[in-house]
């Protein structure tokens, strides 16, 4: 487990207690859904095991459809199954279930208002060694732009598990974004998950730190360092990027007067821009966006890549220092 130099698990507001893949959280929840509801069906495009649909496949072979390496058709078949009254989960790597099939999602799912859930695994830099072809950093922007689409980027195993169940309860298209590597499990299993609702992980008064997905783990380490420096951080996890819990974000920004966002995504069109747009219209405060600055990824280990692209713990700490300086200058 990656723990930034000098930090101990006990320094963290939610000490990690396990290490599991977020994709496994999806797969386990999908299996659970399969048991609960015979209308749940799953579709994969040759990556069924990679995205952890294996349990569902094994137990519900009649409701699992291997589509082969043909994502566009998979989206349409899912829309057709939804039309017939089923609850389809179509999954692949995040790149192939969003960017590759944007028009299919736009017309056959969102414009047609079909109750299809899209599961994108291996999102972001933490995919690691496969490199930029597979490390999509633009998917949140794409999916956020579509009317009716809900976008969720859970942060650990249990949140992904809960997000998957919540996606099934929601009537309408949902994009679930999760990742490949084993990642610290730190949120208590009892932590409530409400679609569209921000989780305030720690209240504070100096600065609001907002993170999504794998970056919640990095931001939580930054919070510990900042706390040691005497900075009182309000730490918020946004798992549902769309619809955004604007109320909670606004209230926090009003209180702290400074905001930093963290995401494993381009700085264009992701969480940071969503938060900035929300606050610019009501509560203009200094904002720093921690994300990938208009570059493609590359091969490497997940943590090496987060360092290389400015998404490491010290990068977040520095962003908080910058935003506090700007706050003071105001």
């Amino acid at each position, binding site marked *: 487990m990656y723990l930034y130099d000098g930090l101990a698990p006990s320094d963290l507001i939610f000490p990690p207690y396990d290490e599991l893949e977020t994709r496994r959280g999806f797969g386990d929840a999908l299996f659970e859904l399969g048991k609960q509801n015979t209308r749940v*069906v799953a579709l994969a495009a040759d990556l069924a095991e990679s995205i952890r649909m294996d349990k569902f496949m094994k137990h519900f072979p*009649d*409701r699992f*459809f291997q*589509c*082969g390496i*043909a994502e*566009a*058709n*998979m*989206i*349409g*078949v*899912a*829309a*057709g*199954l*939804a*039309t*017939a*009254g*089923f609850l389809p989960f179509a999954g692949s790597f995040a790149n192939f279930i969003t960017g590759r099939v944007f*028009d*299919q999602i*736009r*017309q*056959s799912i969102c*414009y*047609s*208002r*079909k109750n299809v859930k899209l599961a994108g695994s291996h999102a972001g830099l933490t995919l690691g060694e496969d490199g930029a072809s597979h490390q999509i950093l633009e998917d949140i922007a794409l999916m956020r732009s579509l009317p009716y689409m809900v976008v969720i980027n859970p942060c650990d195993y249990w949140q992904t598990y809960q997000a998957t169940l919540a996606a099934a309860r929601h009537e309408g298209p949902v994009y679930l974004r999760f990742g490949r590597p084993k990642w610290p499990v730190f949120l208590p299993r009892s932590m409530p998950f409400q679609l569209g609702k921000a989780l305030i992980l720690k209240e504070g008064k100096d600065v609001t730190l907002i993170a999504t997905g794998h970056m919640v783990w990095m931001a939580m380490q930054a919070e510990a360092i900042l706390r040691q420096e005497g900075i009182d951080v309000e730490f918020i996890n946004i798992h549902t990027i769309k619809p955004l819990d604007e109320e909670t974000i606004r209230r926090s920004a009003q209180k702290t007067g400074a905001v930093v966002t963290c995401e494993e995504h381009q700085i264009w069109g992701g969480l940071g821009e969503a938060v900035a747009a929300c606050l610019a219209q009501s509560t203009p405060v200094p904002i720093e966006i921690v994300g990938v600055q208009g570059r493609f990824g590359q091969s490497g280990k997940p943590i090496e890549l987060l360092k290389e692209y400015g998404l490491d713990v010290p990068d977040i700490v520095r962003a908080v220092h910058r935003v506090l300086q700007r706050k003071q200058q105001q």
Partner: protein
Amino acid sequence: MEAVLEEKSTDQAAQRIHQLEQIATQVRRDVLWMTYLARSGHPGGSLSAADFLVALYFDVMDIHPPHFQMDSIGEDAFILSNGHICPAWYSVLARRGYFPLEELATFRRIHSRLQGHPATLEGLPGVRIATGSLGQGLSVAVGLALGKRLRKDPHIVYCMVGDGELQEGQIWEAIAFAGHYQIDNLIVAVDWNNQQIDGQVEHVMSLGDLPARWRALRWTVIEVAEGNQMAQVLQALYQARTLAFQGKPIVLLLRTHMGYPIDFMLDNHRWHGVPPNREQLRAALAQLPETLGDFPIPETIRQEVLSQ
């Protein structure tokens, strides 16, 4: 179904075909009026596909209009993949009783349920999926047919695709999927008029040996030499029905004519997406008798067009 046809006397069968032809003629008038009133739209393919759509909705499909149910469980369903020919489909849906005939005059107008390409958002009865961006509807039809199979609903999903649309890669993904999973409650018709926006399909991007390509992916292929002859279309559809539920999806390759039967539109790709002007509309309507009565058209406009 074929048995029913056989039981009918030749006279009765001929009479039925004549009735369907009359409907198709009226649908063609509707297409011309609609695209004229909208000053836009796609008359060419609408005219080539009219006979198939009429045969399907007025004779072949087991449907229960005006009642429309999105999931189509307990009845047959139709998906129009080449959404741009919706003028013909809208006319057929209205004349079959899914929505009021008057609504045809709102085609492509603001706040209309009759969007330029079929859509579900406005809740137009009969439409189950938005199409228009080509290549997607067939996949949805495949999914719907698969859904019927899973729900043990012994009904058929029909789908129409354009021939130019077969240039889309997704179509071949869907064809492979349907063959692989033996989706045998699926009957697809190709409106093979050999015209697309930029020219003849064979010139723009050759389709190769089309029957062989479908067969290679495990489909039953029925070729129809004259897809604008009602008797041939009807016979092919009945044949397809008897072949359904036998382990293979079925495709009808309908050799049709863009703009049929208007002499100055016939087999001309320029009529893909251009509406007739007043003189062209007058000339075209003169070639199509008003069999069932036109949908309500403002009298001033009607006079303007029809009076020389």
